[in-house]
């Protein structure tokens, strides 16, 4: 049955995924590789040990054009974007009028360019683009760039791998972004990612994507990595997955994302529901996002209820699975704030049984971003 509404899109790297033997699944409206023949656990461990290449072309890329697009974006985000320096990227939260998180994204100010470069979540891009365009009408124009592909090279060897294709690029520090030529391809390269490892996100024109991906994969230290390992890597790194760990019903205070509120913005305010959010930052929230380590080996999935030791339900898991680097189950979720301290004993209600678990600090696996010497 033909139904255009259900027609799945393909990224410019689809043919490459098929060529590499990927298992393809529908994700955020795209046919995406969930894993390659290597398998999720080996793909995950390889990324932590060497380097992995991820296709994230389904994410939404756009440029923001206007007299002062950074100031304009501050009306819908609590970040300090006006203070974003040239050549730098910053994490942002897009808020609805109630202060709920409409999406999270990365915003970049490229050197010597007036337009800002935006990357949002795949599942939210249409909605985000419409929301930003409407809310900031007359102040900025959002120019979607579906003609661009995006890939991530992640892992401790990512720097040396990419430096062979773009000599000197390993000098970049975490959150730095430049335009560069990589393997003969014009690219926007940011020292960033979603795995907790050092690495890059590389935006190129769709027509150049396969050429660049094949050049990177030609390095014996690099394996292609699917969405399965992308999820287990980000969960070990304690990073939120939009639509699971944060959504329109959660605000930055309870999501423990207060670091994403710019210092200047905390007093200057001027973002949606600013007074309410800052009051909740100062006075505390009823619930809080935490890390959770189940005892034993059984994973507790998204939606699992969390109980205190008397059996009263005190929260819910929002992301849960298995952490290959820890060889143990891990989860994150929300609990009533009085149970949010590290080490607090709780029970996870899995298949009608109470599995003992503890509240645990995140990240579960330490971040290893490139900082220090460099620029």
């Amino acid at each position, binding site marked *: 049955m033909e139904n255009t509404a259900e027609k799945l899109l393909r990224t410019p790297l689809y043919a490459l995924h098929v060529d590499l033997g990927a298992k393809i699944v529908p994700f955020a409206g795209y046919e995406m590789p969930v894993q390659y023949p290597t*398998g999720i*656990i080996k793909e995950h461990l390889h990324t932590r040990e060497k380097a992995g290449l991820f296709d994230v072309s389904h994410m939404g890329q756009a440029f923001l054009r206007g007299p002062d697009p950074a100031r304009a974006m501050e009306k819908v985000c609590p970040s300090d974007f006006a203070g974003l320096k040239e050549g730098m990227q910053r994490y942002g939260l897009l808020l609805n009028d109630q202060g709920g998180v409409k999406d999270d994204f990365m915003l970049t100010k490229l050197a010597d360019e007036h337009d800002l470069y935006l990357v949002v979540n795949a599942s939210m891009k249409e909605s985000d683009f419409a929301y930003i365009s409407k809310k900031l009408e007359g102040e900025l124009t959002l120019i979607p760039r579906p003609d661009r592909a995006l890939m991530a090279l992640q892992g401790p060897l990512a720097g040396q791998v990419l430096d062979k294709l773009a000599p000197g690029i390993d000098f970049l520090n975490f959150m730095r972004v430049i335009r560069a030529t990589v393997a003969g391809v014009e690219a926007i390269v940011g020292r960033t990612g979603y795995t907790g490892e050092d690495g890059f996100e590389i935006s190129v024109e769709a027509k150049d994507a396969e050429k660049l991906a094949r050049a990177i994969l030609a390095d014996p230290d690099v394996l292609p990595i699917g969405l399965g390992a992308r999820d287990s890597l980000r969960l070990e790194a304690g990073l939120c997955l939009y639509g699971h760990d944060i959504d329109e019903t959660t605000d930055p205070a309870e999501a423990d994302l207060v670091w994403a509120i710019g210092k200047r913005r905390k007093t200057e305010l001027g973002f949606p529901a600013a007074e309410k959010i800052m009051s909740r930052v100062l006075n505390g929230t009823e619930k809080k996002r935490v890390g959770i380590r189940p005892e034993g080996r059984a994973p507790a999935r998204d939606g699992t209820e969390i109980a205190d030791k008397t059996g009263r339900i005190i929260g819910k898991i929002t992301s849960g699975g298995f952490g290959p680097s820890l060889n143990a189950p891990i989860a994150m979720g929300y609990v009533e704030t009085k149970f949010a301290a590290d080490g607090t004993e709780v029970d996870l209600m899995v*298949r009608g049984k109470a599995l003992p678990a503890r509240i645990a600090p995140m990240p579960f696996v330490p971040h290893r971003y490139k900082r220090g010497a460099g620029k």
Partner: protein
Amino acid sequence: MTTYYTDQHEWIRVEGDEGTVGITSHATEQLGDVVFVETPSVGKTLKKGDEAAVVESVKAASEVYSPVGGTVTAANEDLSGEPAKVNAEPEGEGWFFKLKIADKAELSQLMTEDKYKEFVASH
């Protein structure tokens, strides 16, 4: 000794009145890396189609259904420490549980190996 298959991708190898149950290679390929297995308690009575065990991959949890009715006589304890055995040898060392079959007539409702191969190829 005959092995039968279900449309839920379990196998049961029958010797006398006892059956050994596991999941097929095809099932493990679909699941990916297995990270946790929960097997039934010895002595538990299962009806045909009852949830008997749970197998979890990195991505998701799946139920394993009992291909026929019976009473559990053994569970593969090795899988709790080495769940990857399910991927390595799904139709050997990666078995889940054994049961004393209550009614061997139920086996006739299952697929032979050839039928199962056809079933997988057509789905």
